[in-house]
């Protein structure tokens, strides 16, 4: 099924088109959501909303970019919303003195993982998005530029600054 056929099928509310869409893009969507959120369960739950969002807004897709790029854009936006919501929740739990249970202290690897996600998420918004798409999703600068709707030079600059910032932020930690 070609992208135009898929789009037409989704517009016609064809279940086969939905199946094709989900089978083709579920890995991309869930993995990207996971790289942003850092929690597989939440990423999987979010993927359901992402696919629903794709179906609902497919008529807005004008074909200016590839369908996969457009799906990346929706995934990134929805994932960033979850990250923001989780940050607010964290602030609230800290303010109310209810610290979430930390299970990672006993396990070095999990602790490292937690620190890494915390540090990466603490990057400024656009640096965080560009860095995640480049390092985790392994996307080329050109596609990141298209997803984020910015220039290629901006992507390069954002990723460079993200790396610099990460080095600074990771300095206090003794990671092995």
């Amino acid at each position, binding site marked *: 099924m070609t992208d135009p056929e898929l789009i037409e099928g989704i517009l016609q509310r064809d279940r086969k088109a939905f199946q094709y869409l989900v089978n083709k893009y579920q890995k991309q969507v869930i993995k990207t959501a996971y790289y942003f959120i850092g929690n597989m369960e939440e990423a999987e739950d979010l993927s359901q909303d992402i696919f629903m969002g794709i179906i609902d807004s497919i008529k807005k897709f004008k074909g200016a970019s590839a369908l996969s790029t457009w799906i990346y854009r929706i995934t990134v936006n929805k994932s960033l919303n979850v990250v923001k919501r989780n940050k607010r929740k964290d602030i609230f739990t800290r303010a109310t003195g209810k610290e979430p249970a930390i299970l990672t202290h006993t396990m070095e690897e999990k602790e*490292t993982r937690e620190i*890494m996600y915390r540090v990466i998420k603490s990057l400024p918004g656009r640096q965080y998005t560009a860095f995640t798409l480049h390092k985790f999703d392994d996307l080329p600068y050109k596609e990141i530029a298209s997803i984020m709707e910015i220039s290629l030079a901006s992507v390069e600059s954002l990723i460079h600054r993200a790396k610099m910032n990460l080095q600074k932020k990771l300095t206090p930690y003794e990671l092995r």
Partner: protein
Amino acid sequence: MNSDEREQSRVLDSFIEKERMLEPNPFMATRILQHIDTKLGSREQNFAFRFVKLVSPTMIVLGFALAIFAGYTLGKPRNIHSVPGPVNAQAIETLKGEMFIHDFVDEDKIFASNN
């Protein structure tokens, strides 16, 4: 880049590599499709429900309006005009003959002549 920075970079890269190897639940596609079906189904139901919710009061209001209109129309005093039919002289003569009437009495004329 000093040795600490190199180590940080190595740890970061190894962390990213491990994260990239993680695979989502293989049955997620079924769950996602189920979610889509449920959402679209409930939307259709909602549409039908909203339609019924909107149509019911409209039908009741229309019913009332129709009843009032019908009541008004049926109860309205009507002007009944008697339309005199054409006088058929031949028919009158026949009738007079059958009923042995020699002539019709013009009561008004009699009343006027008496007074």
